[in-house]
C-alpha cells in the first residue's frame, strides 16, 4: 500500500478516479438538468466560457439541445457501471473455471481451454460485436458482450497461476492434512494467485470502458436516448466544424477516466511486484 501511495502518478490517478466515481454517484444531484431533456431553443450552445455560452448550460448543449454536463455526468454512471459489472461477470466465472481446469488436468482442462481458444479466436471488439449481433444492442447486452471477451484471459491467468502453485510444497502439505478439493481450491491456492488477477482486473476495467464507448459509437451498445460517452461522439461527428465541444468533451471524459484507471493499474502492479517496476 505504501509503495502505491509513494508513486506520485498512481496516487494522482487515484484521486482523479475517485473524483470521477464521486461525480457519477452524485450525478442525479450534481447535474443541472435531466440528461434526456431537449431544450429546442438552445441547440448547440457553446460552453459557458465561449462566446454565446450560457450559465444555464456550463458545458454547452448538443445537437438536440440536451445539457452536455448532465449527459457527461450520467454517462459516467453508465461507463463505470458497465465497467464494474463486466469485470465481475468475467472475473468470477473466470476464477472458478481457471481453478477447475487446474485441478482437473485430465479432461476438464483441455475442454475448457479449447472453448476459451475459440473465444480468443476473435479480437476483443469483434467478439463483442458478434455477441451483440446475437443478443441485440443495449446496456445489459453490452455488459455480457464485454464480459465474454474478457473471460478467456482470466481463465488462462488463473489456471496458469494455480498450476504453478499446485506444484508447491504447501499445497501438498494441505492435501496430506486432508483438505478437500473445494477447500484446496479457494482457501489454499486461490489467495496466492490473486495478485496478477487484481492487476489484470484493473486493466480489464479500463478496456471495458473503451469497449463500451466503441460499441456505443458504432450504435451497438447503449442506446439513445440514454447518455453514453461513445454514442455521444457518434452523433457529434457531423458537428466537428460547427460545435467542436460536442466532440472534444465526451472524448476527454473517456480519455481522462481510462488514463486514471491505467495509471492506477500500473501503480498497483509496481507495488505488488517490484521486479516489474518500469522505473
Amino acid at each position, binding site marked *: 500500500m505504501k509503495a502505491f501511495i509513494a508513486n506520485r502518478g498512481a496516487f494522482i490517478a487515484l484521486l482523479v478516479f475517485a473524483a470521477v466515481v464521486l461525480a457519477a454517484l452524485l450525478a442525479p444531484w450534481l447535474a443541472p438538468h435531466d440528461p434526456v431533456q431537449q431544450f429546442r431553443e438552445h441547440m448547440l450552445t457553446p460552453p459557458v466560457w465561449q462566446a454565446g455560452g450560457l450559465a444555464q448550460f456550463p458545458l454547452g448543449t448538443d445537437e438536440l439541445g440536451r445539457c452536455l454536463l448532465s449527459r457527461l455526468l450520467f454517462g459516467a454512471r453508465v461507463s463505470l457501471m458497465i465497467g464494474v459489472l463486466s469485470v465481475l461477470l468475467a472475473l468470477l466465472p473466470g476464477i472458478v473455471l481457471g481453478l477447475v481446469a487446474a485441478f482437473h488436468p485430465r479432461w476438464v482442462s483441455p475442454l475448457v481451454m479449447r472453448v476459451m*481458444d475459440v473465444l480468443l479466436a476473435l479480437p476483443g471488439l469483434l467478439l463483442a460485436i458478434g455477441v451483440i449481433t446475437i443478443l441485440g444492442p443495449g446496456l445489459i447486452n453490452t455488459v455480457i458482450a464485454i464480459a465474454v471477451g474478457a473471460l478467456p484471459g482470466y481463465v488462462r491467468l488463473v489456471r496458469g497461476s494455480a498450476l504453478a502453485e499446485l506444484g508447491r510444497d504447501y499445497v501438498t502439505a494441505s492435501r496430506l492434512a486432508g483438505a478437500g478439493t473445494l477447500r484446496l481450491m479457494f482457501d489454499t491456492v486461490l489467495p496466492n494467485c490473486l495478485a496478477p488477477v487484481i492487476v489484470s482486473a484493473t486493466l480489464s476495467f479500463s478496456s471495458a470502458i473503451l469497449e463500451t464507448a466503441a460499441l456505443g459509437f458504432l450504435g451497438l451498445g447503449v442506446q439513445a436516448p440514454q447518455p453514453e460517452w461513445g454514442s455521444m461522439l457518434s452523433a457529434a461527428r457531423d458537428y466537428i466544424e460547427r460545435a467542436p465541444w460536442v466532440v472534444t468533451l465526451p472524448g476527454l471524459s473517456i480519455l481522462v477516466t481510462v488514463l486514471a484507471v491505467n495509471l492506477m493499474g500500473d501503480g498497483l502492479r509496481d507495488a505488488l511486484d517490484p521486479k516489474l517496476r518500469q522505473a
Partner: protein
Amino acid sequence: MFRLLLQKLATLVPTLLGVTLVAFALIRLIPGDPIEIMVGERRLDPAQHAALMKRMGLDQPLPTQYFNYLGQLAQGDLGQSLVTREPVVEEFKVLFPATVELAGSALLLALLLGLPLGMAAALKRGSWFDQLVMATATVGNSMPVFWWGLVLIMAFSVGLEWTPVSGRIGIEYDVPFVSGFMLVDAALSDEAGAWWSALLHLVLPAVVLGTIPMAVIARMTRSAMLEVLREDYMRTARAKGLSPARVVLHHGLRNALIPIVTVLGLQVGSLLGGAVLTETIFSWPGIGKWLIDAIARRDYPVVQAGILISALIFMGVNLVVDLLYGVVNPRMRGELGKDKE
C-alpha cells in the same frame, strides 16, 4: 521448424471447427425465425415460407445443415449478400485489400516509430526525453481510437485542410482495380496526381489506427531494453570492443525483440478492432466498415462471413507470431540436441 509449424497447425484445427460452429450458429442464435429475420418486413404466406426454408436448406436437421455449411466453406462459398445479392466472396475480395493497406500502414508506422522511441527512452533512462516518451505513450495507450480520429480530422482536415476527410482517393480520379492496394493501383494508372491523392487519403487513417499500437510497442520496447541492458552479455559485447551501435542493436535489441514479439499478436488484434472504428470514421471502404454496415442492414450472411474471416485472419496472424517467436528465441525451438560435455 517445419515440424513445429505442423504441430501448431494441428492444435488449431479444433479451434477452427469451433469458430465455424459459432459462425454457423450466429444466425440461428438470433431470437426469431431465421427466414423472417432475413426477409425482414415483407410478409410471406406459408407456402412461400416453406419454399424458402427448403431452398435455404433450413428444413434439414441442424447437424446436416452444419455439414452443408462446412462443405460450402470448403468450396469457398460464403453465401450471398441479402442486400446486394452478390456472392459474399466477391465483395470481400474487393474490400479486403483496402483493410490490409490501412492496417499494414498503421502497423508499419507503429513499428517504425515505436521501436526507436522505446529504445532511445531506455538508453536515456530518466532523462526528460524518456519521461516525455513514456508520458505520451501512456496517454496514447488510454486513447479511444475513434475520438482520436475525430480530433485529428478536426485539426488536419478541417482546420489545416492538409488531408481529406474520407475515402481512399479523390473522387475526381478513376483508378482501375488491379491489386486492390490503392497506392499500387494509383501508381500503375496513368492519372497524374492519383498516387499523391491516394497517399494523402491514407496518411491520417493510418496515423489514427497506428497510434495505440505505437504507444504499446514503445512502452514494451523500453521495458524490454531496460531488462536486456542489465544483462552480463551486454558487458561482454562491450569488452569485445564492438561499436556502441552494434552492441545496442545486434546484442541488445536482438534479445529485447523476444518480449516485443509476444506483444505483437495482441496488437494485431487491436488493429483489427481499431480498423472497424477507423474505417467507420474515415468512410474507408474496407471489411470493417462492410461488417458494421451489414449489421445495421441485417445482412446476416455478410455478418456471418465477416466474423468468420476476422477469426481466420486473427488466428493466422497469431500463428505467424508464434512462429516468429520461435525464430527470435532460440531457447524455445524445442530442439532436443542438448550437448553437454
